[in-house]
C-alpha cells in the first residue's frame, strides 16, 4: 500500500485519475510486483518473533519453521485479498455504486449463514463441501439485497443497497449465532473464523478453494470490457450491442465465486472490497481493464499488510485481519459518504 500511495502526486490531474499512456504500463506492473514482493517478505519476517531474512531461504536455520508457518497465511492472504479486491471492483462496476462491497452488501453474511447451515444441519465438515454452500448463500443474499433495494421509483440507489445489505447482514448474523449456540463444537471452530482470519488454515484448505478463485478471476478479468460498457448506463450499453443481461450474469457469477470462496477460506472480511477499488481508480483512472487487475493486486497487498500489522500492533495479542480491515475501512467509508454527499 505504502508503495502505491507514493505515486499519487503524479496523477493528480483535474479529471481524477491519470490518463496513462501505454508506456506507463511497465511502470505500474513493476510497482505492483514490488508491492506484492515487499508485502510478502514483510509478512514472513515480521511478527511476535522477528525472523532474519536469511532464515527464509536457509532451511537449516532454527527459525525456518516460523517462516514456513507464516508462508501459509501469507499465500492465503494474497489469495483472499486478491479475491476481495476484485469482487469489490466488480460490484462497484456492476451496480455503479461507490459503496458496494461484499461485506457491506450482505454477500459475505449470506455465505457465512449458508456454511453454518451446512455444518449444523447437514453435518458437513470439509472445505470442499462448504464451498458450494457458500456460493449458494452468497448468490441468494446478493439477489435478495438487490431485489429489496430495487423496490420503489428511484430503484436500487447506493444508499438503499448499503442499508438493505446491513439489515440483511444483521438478521443473518442473529440466525447464524442461533444455529451455532445449538452446536457448541462448531462454535469453537467458528469463533476465530467469524472474525475473519487467515492464520492457521493450512495449504490444503487453500488448494480446495483455489480453482474457484482462478475461474472467478478469469471471468472477472474477461469482464473488464463489459464493465466499461455498463459504466455508460444500461441504455447506452444495449445501444452499443451488448446483451446486458448476459453480461450481468457473467459478472455476478464471478462475484459469487470470488466473494464466496474468500469467505469460506478466511471468514467474512468486509471493507477490503470497498477501499481498494477507490484507491486504484484514484491512481489508474476509470478504465476497468486497469482497475480490475490492479484491484486484485492491491487487495492482496492490503490483506497481507493488514495481517502483518495486526500481529505487532497490540502485543502480545494478535489482531485478526477482519478487524484490521475494519480499522482501515471505516474511515474510508465515512470519507466516501461525506464526499458523495447528497448524490446518494
Amino acid at each position, binding site marked *: 500500500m505504502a508503495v502505491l500511495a507514493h505515486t499519487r502526486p503524479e496523477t493528480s490531474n483535474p479529471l481524477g485519475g491519470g490518463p496513462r499512456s501505454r508506456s506507463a504500463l511497465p511502470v505500474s506492473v513493476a510497482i505492483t510486483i514490488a508491492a506484492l514482493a515487499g508485502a510478502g517478505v514483510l509478512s514472513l519476517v515480521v511478527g511476535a518473533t522477528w525472523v532474519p531474512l536469511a532464515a527464509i531461504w536457509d532451511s537449516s536455520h532454527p527459525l525456518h519453521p516460523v517462516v514456513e508457518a507464516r508462508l501459509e497465511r501469507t499465500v492465503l492472504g494474497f489469495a483472499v485479498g486478491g479475491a476481495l479486491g476484485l469482487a469489490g471492483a466488480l460490484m462497484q462496476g456492476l451496480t455503479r455504486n461507490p459503496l458496494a462491497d461484499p461485506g457491506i452488501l450482505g454477500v459475505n453474511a449470506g455465505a457465512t449463514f449458508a456454511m453454518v447451515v451446512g455444518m449444523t444441519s447437514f453435518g458437513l465438515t470439509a472445505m470442499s463441501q462448504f464451498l458450494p454452500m457458500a456460493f449458494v448463500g452468497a448468490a441468494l443474499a446478493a439477489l435478495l439485497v438487490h431485489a429489496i*433495494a430495487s423496490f420503489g421509483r428511484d430503484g436500487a440507489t447506493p444508499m438503499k443497497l*448499503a442499508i*438493505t445489505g446491513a439489515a440483511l447482514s444483521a438478521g443473518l448474523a442473529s440466525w447464524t449465532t442461533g444455529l451455532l449456540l445449538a452446536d457448541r463444537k462448531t462454535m469453537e471452530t467458528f469463533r476465530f473464523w467469524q*472474525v475473519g482470519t487467515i492464520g492457521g488454515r493450512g495449504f490444503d484448505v487453500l488448494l480446495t478453494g483455489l480453482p474457484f478463485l482462478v475461474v472467478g478471476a478469469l471471468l472477472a478479468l474477461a469482464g473488464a470490457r463489459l464493465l466499461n460498457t455498463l459504466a455508460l448506463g444500461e441504455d447506452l450499453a444495449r445501444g452499443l450491442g451488448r446483451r446486458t443481461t448476459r453480461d450481468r450474469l457473467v459478472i455476478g457469477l464471478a462475484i459469487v465465486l470470488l466473494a464466496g470462496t474468500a469467505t469460506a477460506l478466511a471468514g467474512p472480511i468486509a471493507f477490503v472490497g470497498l477501499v481498494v477499488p477507490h484507491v486504484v481508480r484514484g491512481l489508474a483512472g476509470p478504465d476497468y481493464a486497469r482497475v480490475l487487475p490492479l484491484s486484485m493486486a492491491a487487495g492482496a497487498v492490503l490483506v497481507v499488510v493488514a495481517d502483518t500489522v495486526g500481529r505487532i500492533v497490540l502485543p502480545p495479542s494478535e489482531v485478526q485481519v477482519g478487524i484490521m480491515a475494519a480499522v482501515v*475501512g471505516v474511515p474510508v*467509508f465515512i470519507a466516501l459518504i461525506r464526499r458523495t454527499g*447528497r448524490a*446518494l
Partner: protein
Amino acid sequence: MTVTVDPGPVATQTPTRDAVEVVRRARRGPVRHRRRLVGGLALVVAAAFAARVLLGDYTVTIPDFLRILGGEQIPGATYIVMESKLPRAVLAVLAGLAFGVGGAIFQTTLRNPLASPDIVGVSLGASAAAVSAIALAGWTGWPVSAAAVAGALGVALVVRLVAGDHGGFRLVLAGIGMAAAMQSVIQYVFTRVDEYDVQLVLRWLTGSVNGVAWSSIGLFATALVVLLPATAWAARSLEVTELGDDAASGLGVGRGRTDLLMFLAVLLVAVAVAAAGPIAFVAFLSGPIARALNQGRTTLLASGLVGAAIVLVGDYAGAYAFADLNLPVGIVTGAFGAPFLLWLLARGPLNGHRGRRAA
C-alpha cells in the same frame, strides 16, 4: 379514526356551536385513544411479566410468588425466582422501556425510522466501551455505566459530525459504518480474554437479560428513575420537534431543546446497554409499532411499553421456545427484527411514498 365529521348537521344547525363541538371532539379523540392504548399496552406488559416470572420450565403459583417476595424460603422455588426469573423479567422491562423511549426519540427527532440507536451504532458504541472497561481495565459497577455513556456519546458525536446538517441518509450510512467498527472492537476484546464465555460475548454483541446481578439492575433502575422523568419533561415539545429544525425554531422550540432530548436518549440507551447489552432492534422496532398502534402519532410512553413487551416476549421465546436451547433475547429480536427492517426498506419512506404508518 375516531374523528367523524358528519357534514349534514353542520349545514343545518347553528354553525358556531357545532364547529366548537367538532373541534373539541377532534382534540379529545386522539387523547382518549392514547390513554386506551397506553392502558392496553401496560396490561400486555404486566401479563408478559407475570408469564415470564410464573410460567416456563418451573411453574410458580401466585400465592407462592407473593410468599417468596415476602421473604419466605421455599426450597428450590425461592432460588429460581429470586436469582433467575425475577431479575430477568425486571431487567427485560427496564431495558425495553429505555430502548423503546430512546429509540422513539432518535427516530422522531431525526425524522427517520432508520435512525434508531441500534442501527446507527450508538448501542454498539456503548457496548464496546463497556466491554473494554470490563475486560481490559477490570472495572465493575457504575464506572462501567459511565464508560458505556462515554462510548455512546462518542459514537453519536462522530455520526453527527460526519452527517453534518442534512441528517437522513448520510447519518444512517455513517452510523452503519460506525456500528461495524464498534463490532470489530468488541470482537477484538474477546480475542484478548483468556476464557471465552459464549454467553458473555453474546451479551455484549447482541444483548441478553440472563444472569445479571441485582446490584447492576439496581444501578440501572436508579438511573432510569432520574432519566425517565427528565425525558418526559424535555419531550413536552416533541410534536413540534418532529416538524424539523426550522419549523420548530419558528414555533419557539430552539435547537437546544432538541439537543437536550437527544442527549437524554443517548443516556437512556447507554445505561440500558451497560445493564443488558445492545439488545438488537428493540429501539428500532418499538417506535414504529407504537406509532402504528397510535394512529400515526408519536408517543414515547407507548413506545417504551412496546419495547418492554418485545424484550419480555423475546426473552421468554428464547428461553423456552427452542427445545433445550437457551437463546439470549438479542438473538431472538435480531432474527425477527431484521425481516421487519427489510420490509420497511422495501415499502417504506425511502421509496418516496411517505405513508403515515410506515414513518
